[in-house]
């Protein structure tokens, strides 16, 4: 099966940018709230593309090994 990194199937539910450095409570990056509403959509699109790319790359490696 050929896996496209731009497939439209499925949904990225959310992308949590950054990593929480605080040992007492959970923080979330709100910098993106400054951008327009469309930016949240772009961020999830970016996250989804990255995930597809990373998984396709891993699959390619496994295929080569086989």
């Amino acid at each position, binding site marked *: *099966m050929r*896996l496209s990194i731009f*497939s439209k*199937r*499925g*949904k*990225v*539910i*959310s*992308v*949590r*940018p*950054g*990593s*929480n*450095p*605080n*040992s*007492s*409570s*959970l*923080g*979330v*990056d*709100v*910098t*993106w*709230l*400054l951008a327009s*509403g469309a930016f*949240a*959509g772009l*961020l*999830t699109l970016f*996250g*989804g593309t*990255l*995930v*597809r*790319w*990373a*998984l*396709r*790359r*891993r*699959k390619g490696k496994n295929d080569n090994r086989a």
Partner: protein
Amino acid sequence: MGRLIEIQPVPGSGKLVRAEPFGGTLAFRRPEMVVLVDHDFLSSVGLRMGTDKPQAAGPDLLLDPVAPFEAHLTVAHGCDAGCRGCYIDSDAQDPGQVDLELWRGVLAKLAELGVYHVALGAGESTPLESLIALAHTARDLGLTPNLSTAGRHLTPRLARKLSVFGRVHLSLDGAAGAAGSVRGRDDFSSSLMALEILRAYHDRVGVNCVVARTNCDELEPLFRLLAGHKVRNVELLRFKPAGRGARIFDQMAMTAEQGESFIGRVLRLGRRYRLRLRLDCSFTPMVCAAGISPKRLSRLGLAGCVGGSWLVSVDWRGRLSGCSFDYENGRASYRDLGRSGVFDHYLNWTKQAPEPCASCDYLSICRGGCHVVARHVSGSFFAADPGCPLVKKWQGRS
């Protein structure tokens, strides 16, 4: 591209994707982010990940993962700083020694569960070497360790060793006098020195700032100072009624006016000084009240009280809780990690949400705001967060 992108394999299994009731989770080290995808997405990339009860993902559904994304570990509570609002009620007589074997066991259990991140903290009497040793253990287990510290005993020699941490944040509650207004003592100059040392030896340094009534209107000088020191990451934390903080909460809680204008103000300041701003979970009611659509907030991973779900905490006594500020509910210990039913009061909060939360469009995101604040003010963990601007508005109407 491979160097710019690095996935963090799921600790314990080494897989790239962690199976979840709603689909799956992937954590990236570079760029730093956690991505939640649904079942159809996984199928589209050729993955079938079985969970016992597959759950469709939607804006009104709670996203409760199969295991926490992160754990907060307060490994010791000895500290002679004497901050008046210390949430762990630190003990000046405690030498702050760390039971490394116990904590290595906790880390192993967290890795077995597939937890991605651990945030380590301790009172300032604890030798940083102990935290560094635990961070190495965490790395060996596939976890990403982060550190928050007040940096009182930080030296360049120690700072060099902090590279084992993914991110290091210094506690700094304001510029000059504003910092002291929260802690009740002036240690601004030593904090600034610690910040400079950290900046020199670590490339992912930021600041954690507790926001209270006394410093809420003084954030701009801090942001200006941080921009001047090229510190771009700032996490703002709401003052909590925990530990010694409970005694002074009434005088430290933000006023209604401060709460209402907070989000607009910090976002404007963040843009002006080009900072990357993070808000802790207890500020979620304020973000929701700012009028941004629930769908947008959900896509950005905004979350209110996700105690016992997205995160868990273990304190220096080995007590397990859904949140570092809440050890009053139950008597769970770290041995209960992964056991079901321990955090039901958190996970079922929305099912018994009071008004106005029950009919609020943001309920699945906010989950009622900070239950620790609610319990302190009203006596009930299941009350609405009294600091929420929407709750205040509703109370004014009824």
